[in-house]
């Protein structure tokens, strides 16, 4: 199939571009297409494959969460929806050019920049962004060539969110625990040779302040060769007593951590949850050897020796040319979904998901968020009528000269089927293609 396999969109009605194909992009599309207003949606995605962080963020050993893609596929087959893969907004087409061709443009670009710690030594060899590691084990083409040296005995994950737990758990699991997931083959190979036996998961807050969820923490009860522990010197006796007894989530989280603090380690690996420690410096001769931590506002330094560090202290959105940016929140500047420069709203430009409200919530949070942005778009559409000066199909014709190939949803279905065929003999749900060239070849096969 070629780019011409893109179905013709309904020429009547409003034309809306959605930038990004993660959860919020799909959910804003769903809300728009269900509104009963004559409109069609073109979803732009820089890669040939959709689903954003559901494909490249959700950990390979959490397959049930990935079943959400069935909902995305249902949205993608709604009349009026087109997937325009392989086109990078900001590189192949500027925001302003999109705005000339569409009545409304909705940015759903996510939060793909890992925040830095701001301490010396952050760039030493062996110090990595957690997001790079996640992209690597999930087979993201941009991260497949990353190198992680797992030949050392100790690794430290800085941060107490769910991404930190994902990283720690993937390091803690044996190759056999990962072999039948959709983990990228290159990652499985390296992890199988890992010599890591001690994983420190370090956060600056108390147990009650940790952002990870009880559900993610529970996974640490069921690891084949790794015990979880909490050091008694990090916690006061009442740190495991929830302030709010009406909060069962917090109560469960603290009960799990209390259990870890009482556990005797017997397995080959140990994952130690550390509290009340902020990183001050990463040190080593040429590569990471130790991290200096201190309690907040205290000079008492504690060194944790390790050869590998993953920084997992939040993410922010990549700024886009032509779109005002909120430096403080790390999102496209917006007023409840309408992109705005200060108090002045930019007509026809919207945002949803993590690039609207920052990286928080579960997959479903983006559904409510997408609906809210769709409501703003729908309220504004009558006033936006007649604003655009060009036609989306004329834009697509120009884009065909700028990219090797425009990938349709039917092309993705072919790539998807090929990945599943590759995975089947290995007992994996799929073996992902990890290069754009291989994805495109599968679409053509």
């Amino acid at each position, binding site marked *: 199939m070629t780019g011409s396999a893109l179905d013709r969109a309904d020429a009547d009605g409003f034309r809306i571009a959605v930038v990004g194909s993660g959860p919020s992009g799909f959910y804003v599309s769903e809300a728009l297409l269900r509104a009963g207003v004559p409109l069609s949606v073109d979803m732009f995605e820089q890669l040939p494959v959709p689903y954003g962080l559901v494909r490249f963020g959700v950990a390979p050993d959490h397959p*049930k969460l*990935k079943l959400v893609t069935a909902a995305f596929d249902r949205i993608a087959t709604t009349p009026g929806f087109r997937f325009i893969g392989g086109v990078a907004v900001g590189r192949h087409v500027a925001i302003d050019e999109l705005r000339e061709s569409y009545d409304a443009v909705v940015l759903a670009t996510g939060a793909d920049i890992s925040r830095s710690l701001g301490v010396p030594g952050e760039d030493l060899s062996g110090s990595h962004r957690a997001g790079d590691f996640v992209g690597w084990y999930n087979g993201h083409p941009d991260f497949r060539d990353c190198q992680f040296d797992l030949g050392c005995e100790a690794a430290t994950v800085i941060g107490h969110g769910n991404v930190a737990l994902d990283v720690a758990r993937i390091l803690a699991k044996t190759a056999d625990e990962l072999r039948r997931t959709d983990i990228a083959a290159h990652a499985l190979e390296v992890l199988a040779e890992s010599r890591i036996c001690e994983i420190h998961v370090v956060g600056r807050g108390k147990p009650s302040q940790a952002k990870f*969820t009880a*559900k993610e923490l529970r996974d640490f009860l069921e690891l084949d060769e790794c015990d979880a522990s909490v050091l008694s010197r990090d916690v006061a006796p009442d740190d495991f007593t929830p302030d709010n007894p009406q909060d069962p*989530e917090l109560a469960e989280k603290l009960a799990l951590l209390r259990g870890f603090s009482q556990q005797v380690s017997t397995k080959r690996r140990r994952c130690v949850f550390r509290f009340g420690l902020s990183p001050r410096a990463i040190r080593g001769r040429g590569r990471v050897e130790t991290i200096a931590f201190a309690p907040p506002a205290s000079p008492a330094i504690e060194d944790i020796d390790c050869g590998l560090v993953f920084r997992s202290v939040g993410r922010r959105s990549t700024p886009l040319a032509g779109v005002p940016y909120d430096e403080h929140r790390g999102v496209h500047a917006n007023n409840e979904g309408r992109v705005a420069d200060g108090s002045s709203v930019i007509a026809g430009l919207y945002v949803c998901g993590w690039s609207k409200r920052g990286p928080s919530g*579960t*997959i479903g949070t983006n559904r409510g968020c997408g609906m809210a942005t769709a409501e703003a778009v729908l309220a504004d559409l009558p006033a936006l009528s007649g604003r655009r000066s060009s036609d989306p199909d004329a834009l697509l014709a120009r884009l065909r000269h700028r990219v090797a190939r425009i990938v349709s949803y039917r092309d993705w279905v072919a790539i998807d089927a090929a990945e599943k065929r590759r995975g089947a003999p290995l007992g994996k749900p799929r073996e992902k293609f990890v290069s754009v060239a291989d994805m495109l070849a599968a679409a053509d096969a």
Partner: protein
Amino acid sequence: MTYVVTDNCRGCRYTECVTVCPVECFHVDEKMTYIDPENCIDCGGCVPVCPVAAIEPDYRLAADKKFWIDVNRKRAAETPVLTGRLPPLPGADARRQELGR
């Protein structure tokens, strides 16, 4: 595992859960909502948005609430999917206060 709607929903039925469910697994009757355990993907997004804390993961239910697991499974099979929010039941806010929420 799955998530389960329990008795706090009865008489309130706020349906905030429906707006955040990524897979539309909430069903509804005149009294409350139910989660279809076959479709729930365990994302947990509905738990914090429920104004009356009616939703829990199955393993966290107290012994005297475990029967809600079967009720959800059975009623989800018998009732329609709820695709959008409904107005809360009359008296929902009073009941919410009664529940101390």
